């Protein structure tokens, strides 16, 4: 089993002396969907930003695909969908994709790439619309489609399916599972428990600490509960803060 992300004793202190992550360690295998699950403010985005190399760890180390996080050689191997939209509202869907494709180093065949990723998120009919004129869920899908450009080996998605209807969510999970079979590793943050059930592995995070790590069925077995929501509550229940 190869390791996609290896985190050792990671601590991150943000401005204002906020200890967003406290001594976290984990090993995440290649080719799986891994969910970072936890309540708002738990530290999911901080963890994600550290993995993609946007935040420097205060202590500890992160290795991504065998390289230290933030290494220049990782830039064409991973994609990052931020929690904010991170596409240009005053460009059309296509213009956004073309720009990001060129930034990813694809100067040829951009049209094919654009068509491909738009098909994946079912947005081909909106290709020429300005992003600001799209609905919330459509904007979300455009942002996700940017993360699909160039078939990255590691996709880091911060709440990719928030605000999407169940049908769309289902189809995106089909896509995620298809990407997995190609060997792509997916890191997905969410606070939705129904999302958690779909991941291969779960990392439950609370107040900057990992409170559990395992597959959904393992976690349910461990806590003797029927749903992830219940096991999360039972894990949290024992230790207030």
């Amino acid at each position: 089993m190869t390791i996609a992300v290896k985190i050792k004793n990671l601590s991150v202190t943000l401005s204002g002396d906020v200890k967003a992550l406290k001594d976290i360690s984990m090993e995440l295998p290649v080719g799986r969907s891994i969910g970072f699950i936890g309540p708002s403010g738990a530290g999911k985005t901080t963890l994600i930003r550290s993995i993609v190399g946007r935040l420097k760890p205060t202590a500890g180390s992160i290795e991504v695909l065998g390289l230290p996080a933030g290494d220049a050689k990782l830039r064409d191997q991973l994609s990052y969908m931020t929690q904010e939209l991170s596409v240009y509202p005053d460009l059309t869907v296509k213009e956004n994709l073309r720009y990001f494709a060129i930034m990813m180093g694809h100067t040829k065949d951009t049209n094919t790439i654009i068509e491909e990723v738009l098909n994946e998120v079912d947005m081909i009919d909106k290709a020429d619309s300005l992003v600001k004129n799209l609905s919330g869920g459509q904007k979300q899908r455009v942002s996700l489609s940017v993360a699909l450009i160039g078939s990255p080996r590691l996709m880091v998605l911060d709440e990719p399916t928030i605000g999407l209807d169940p049908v769309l969510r289902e189809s995106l999970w089909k896509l995620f599972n298809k990407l997995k079979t190609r060997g792509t590793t997916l890191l997905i943050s969410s606070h939705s428990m129904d999302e958690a059930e779909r991941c291969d592995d779960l990392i439950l995070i609370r107040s900057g600490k990992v409170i559990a790590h395992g597959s959904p069925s393992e976690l349910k077995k461990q806590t003797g509960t029927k749903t992830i929501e219940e096991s999360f509550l039972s894990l949290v229940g024992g230790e207030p803060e």
Partner: protein
Amino acid sequence: MSPSKTFATASRVLRQLSHDPRTVALLFVVPPVLLTIMKYVFEGEPQVFNGIAPMLLGIFPMVMMFLITSIVTLRERTTGTLDRLMTMPMTKLDFIFGYALAFSFLGLCQAFISGGVMLGLLNVTVLGGAIPTIIAVVFAAFLGTSLGLFLSAFATSEFQAIQFMPAFIFPQLLTCGLFIARDQMAKPLQWFADVMPLTYSVDAMKQVTLHASWTNELTRDLIIVASFGIAALVLGSVTIRRQEK
């Protein structure tokens, strides 16, 4: 740095503006309208107008590009797009120079329009001729863009970015020689003006207005303006961090 990424960034920025025709219209229409108003303000003193109109032509692009650039780059920083770009295989210089290129190009368009109105319709005489005028205006636009890129790093909201205009640009406007010859000001203000970039941008326009041939002072002014611009761009690229803290 890669030319294709720099150009793609420049064309992306221009495309964003092209979807916002009102901004583009304001960018191109406001300067000639203001120049026209000035002409009639100085109706009794056409000579005075002839002296200040070219200086204004150098000030408009600087101020407007400063404002627009600081707001758009601030938006990149706050809406997550810069976040995403910084995880991609592009360099910070692609980003910074892409912006500089886009807005200098807009400055060039603005220079053609306002310069055309000033020379053709408002009958301002510029001894140096149209081409040096346009060159000096493009340098001014480049300067405004660079300063906007750099200073936007110190604003955390659009309100702050807008306040940088009166805070950083107005003092330069007051002392650049537009209102009164610089050697008539109090000494400390002269020293201040000597180290401020707008002074040289305005001085370049003066040189173009007063001299039929290309003067050494004009070359010096343009070199100083360009150096300020490049320094601001380099400092601006330092304020963009790949990895925070």
